[in-house]
């Protein structure tokens, strides 16, 4: 196997954790040092992930940089990490936002800075663990453990209704999570391999359709809550609005991707037939999410709420792309996950910046900011355009590929999806117009100061990425291509093989040659 170097993945996960441990020994009065130290930790983590990105071999479809160590032998749980084209970009996204978020907290987080930084680093460890785990239980442990720091970040540093939002966030995710746990256990005992090794289970297991359906539901509800897919989205506006800016950024940019990633990594290859069966159902829910999210965003008076609901809409596209089961759609979805992370993260940062200055987020309090704070307006413009998918920005690449993939699969869905894009443009541009253009009426707005160096430093890398992905997406797309191809191939082969298994169950005849098929999958 390629790239069996030092376990770089363990470093990526545990550098924030080690940083967290060191932080606990630093006196809490040393605020400045704590900030700089955390910033350095996240920068180091980002640099290592860049090394990972460069060394990642795009020609190899399977898992790279694999780390596998036995952990709990009696259950067959192992410490098993690996990276392929599907999670590589999400890991990059997480570490990329680390330093940005820490920089953005300079004025926003003033009380209990040390605790905030500890929780932030714990959160980053958890998220990276979720993306990199290939052992089902390890994945679940990170999935649940990640809730704790996020819960505190919302609940301690959040807005007025923070406790309600934090508890709602925790309970919703936990509810989905425990169902997934039962699903994992059923899968484990059905596979009978005495192992929670995802790769091995995918290779070996052929579940009958009724098991697939139930297990798909058990996993799917957990992921659908996280995404969030339409009827499960109610925790999201609360959590996003009440969280401090740093929390909203990390929630929108990274946490939601855990859901879509889960669908890709687990539901598709593990339950190929069930995902086929659920395809129309999920696509319709995704379309409802796209259109509903856009409509609700349109009427929000509060900037942060508007951005929050736009997430529901944007992630609908990602779901649509994943369930198109086409190369274009799935690759588009992965790139769109990154895009949504970048643009929505940036939107939350921008809303946070203006909130720090004016202590209001209501659209009606603004207007005519263009003349007063031009640099801010320019950055805001770029981010808005990227979020609505203007050609030349990153959003266009993702949405175009997703719609292309969906079109190949089901034309009606693609048409509805395209309508969603129009609605996105409507609410974003209308919002931008009301905030930035027009006359500078409010006296308080005349005192606004433009962005300072720190804030520009935060936004510049984001803008660079927006344009980079928009103009030359191949840097990122080529890393995902082979893995997606492989994933879809496995899904297809397995769904056919399971079809045969079901037939055998019915007629008790040996039809297919297992070995040939598993050989194919192994290749």
């Amino acid at each position, binding site marked *: 196997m390629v790239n069996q170097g030092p376990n770089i993945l363990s470093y990526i996960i545990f550098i924030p954790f080690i940083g967290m441990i060191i932080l606990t020994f630093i006196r809490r009065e040393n605020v400045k040092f704590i900030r700089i130290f955390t910033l350095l930790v996240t920068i180091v983590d980002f640099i290592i992930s860049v090394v990972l990105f460069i060394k990642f071999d795009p020609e190899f479809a399977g898992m790279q940089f694999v780390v596998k160590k036995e952990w*709990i032998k009696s259950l067959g749980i192992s410490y098993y990490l690996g990276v392929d084209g599907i999670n590589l970009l999400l890991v990059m996204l997480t570490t990329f936002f680390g330093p940005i978020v820490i920089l953005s907290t300079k004025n926003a987080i003033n009380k209990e800075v040390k605790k905030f930084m500890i929780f932030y680093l714990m959160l980053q460890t958890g998220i990276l663990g979720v993306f990199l785990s290939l052992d089902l*239980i390890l994945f679940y442990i990170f999935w649940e*453990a990640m809730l704790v720091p996020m*819960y505190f970040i919302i609940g301690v540093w959040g807005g007025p209704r923070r406790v309600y939002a934090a*508890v709602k966030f925790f*309970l919703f995710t936990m509810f989905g999570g*425990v169902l997934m746990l*039962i699903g994992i256990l059923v899968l484990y005992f059905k596979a009978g391999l005495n192992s929670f090794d995802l790769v091995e289970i995918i290779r070996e297991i052929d579940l009958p359709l009724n098991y697939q359906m139930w297990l798909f539901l058990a996993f799917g509800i957990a992921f659908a809550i996280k995404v969030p897919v339409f009827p499960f989205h109610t925790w999201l506006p609360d959590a996003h609005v009440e969280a401090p800016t740093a929390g909203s950024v990390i929630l929108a940019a990274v946490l939601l991707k855990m859901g879509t990633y889960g669908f890709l990594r687990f539901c598709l290859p593990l339950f190929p037939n069930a995902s086929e069966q659920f395809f129309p159902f999920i696509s319709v829910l995704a379309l409802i999410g796209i259109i509903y999210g856009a409509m609700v965003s349109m009427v929000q008076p509060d900037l942060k709420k508007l951005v929050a609901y736009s997430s529901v809409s944007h992630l609908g596209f990602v779901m649509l792309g994943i369930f198109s089961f086409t190369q274009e759609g799935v690759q588009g979805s992965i790139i769109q996950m990154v895009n949504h992370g970048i643009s929505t993260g940036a939107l939350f940062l921008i809303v946070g910046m203006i909130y720090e200055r004016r202590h209001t987020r209501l659209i009606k309090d603004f207007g005519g900011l263009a003349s007063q704070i031009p640099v801010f307006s320019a950055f805001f413009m770029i981010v808005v355009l990227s979020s609505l998918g203007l050609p030349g920005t990153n959003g266009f690449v993702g949405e175009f590929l997703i719609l292309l993939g969906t079109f190949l699969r089901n034309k009606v869905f693609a048409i509805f999806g395209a309508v969603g894009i129009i609605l996105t443009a409507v609410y974003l541009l209308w919002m931008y117009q009301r905030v930035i253009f027009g006359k500078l009426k409010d006296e308080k707005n005349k005192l606004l100061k433009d962005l300072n160096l720190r804030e520009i430093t935060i936004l510049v890398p984001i803008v660079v990425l927006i344009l980079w992905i928009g103009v030359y997406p191949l840097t990122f797309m080529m890393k995902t291509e082979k893995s997606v191809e492989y994933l879809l191939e496995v899904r297809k082969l397995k769904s056919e093989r399971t079809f045969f298994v079901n037939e055998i169950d019915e007629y008790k005849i040996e039809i297919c040659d297992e070995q040939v098929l598993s050989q194919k999958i192994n290749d």
Partner: protein
Amino acid sequence: MDYSIPTINLGVIGPEIIILLTAISVLIIGLFPNYRRWSISIAFIGIIFAFYDIYYLWNLNQVGFDGMVLADNFALLFDIIFLIGTLLTLLLSGNFINQYIRGTGEYLSLILFATLGMMLMVSTNDLIVIFLGLETLSISLYILAAFRRSREDSLEAGLKYFLLGAFTTGFLLYGIALIYGSTGTTNIYSILNLLKDGSVEIGILFYIGMILIIVGFGFKAAVVPFHMWVPDVYEGSATPVTAFMSAGVKAASFAVFLRLFLTGFSPIISQITGTLAVLAILTMTVGNVVAIVQTNIKRMLAYSSIAHAGYILIALTALSRNIESEFSAASIMYYILVYTFMNIGAFGVVIYMEKSEEEVLKISDYAGLGFKKPFAAICMTLFMFSLAGIPPTAGFMGKLYIFSSAVESELYGLAVIGVLNAVIAVYYYLRVVIFMYMKEAVLDFSYLSARPVMALSLSISIGGIIYLGIFPQSFISLLVNIL
């Protein structure tokens, strides 16, 4: 050291004898006010000697008293769990002893007598000795519950516990009598052999006897619908006593369940799977739902302890369905150990928070603790997350093992109800955390001073739940060897 004496092998009950002697000496020393302060140290020394004797007896599988008493690894392992519980409780009792300084001897010796009862319950093959152990345990606890004799709620707790306990003791005894009537023996292995070779017809009397025994221990383990005493007794007793009761009695009762299910009743246990499943569902759901509305932290923990009995019952149900499964039995033992650490730990923080004159027991009193007393708050947070089953604490591993055993026995419905209950539980455990970190302080915590001994006890508990949570393998393989 050579213990062997024909037929009566005192070495088998070595740990029990050590605890008994310690209890008596503590009682006597308590009579002399000048030396009273030494009594707690003597109790510690006794417990350490008992640990040493267990270490000595390990793997020897001794049997004594004509097969009535045995010291197999199963019994010794539970002895260790009980002694850990006692040790942690005694570490937390310093403040309480200072308040009731004249009762030092009685308090310590009663705790030790109760421990002795538990140890007897597990180190035997005979229903009669189980009963003896249970009575030793119960009578000590009745007195301990009413120990704060100047307080009405404490007296109420003692009386309530005594009356209901005596009543269920009747059930238990009647059950034993019925089993004796239908088999002619009280020895569990003889019952097993009789059932296996079919020389005794299993009649309705035997089943009734078995059910009555389950009721008897279900009462002690706080299984719904035999749980009515739990909240009042837990609230009325002194908190160290509550901590001791919640962990120890439950552990002992489930140990007996396990012993009976694995040996004497094993051939017919699969017939009561349905009953056990219903009990499990009721216990979890009632415990968790009622815990939500509690404002007193001791009552909340009381209902949570009922709920935890429900989780253990899930594994017991799985065991009854699939008696060969080492997994289910191991998960019960693992959970009991973990529960001992996390529950005594949680009560430990409650003890730390208590004021002597007016007790600080409302959950809202914990507001702002997180920023005023970080160590206590972090401990409490960890215990709450462990009780709620959030990784990477041992509470999560315990639940993982329990739900795995249910899924392994294909009890999917029960497993799903179990995990949904775990979500309900998260709500009320989080409430404590919310008050500690997300609300402004109402009390000034200036009355709280550092208490190194208590901190030691909390640290041991924290160490236990973290170590067992991250490295469960060593303990689990030990369990699998035993079973």
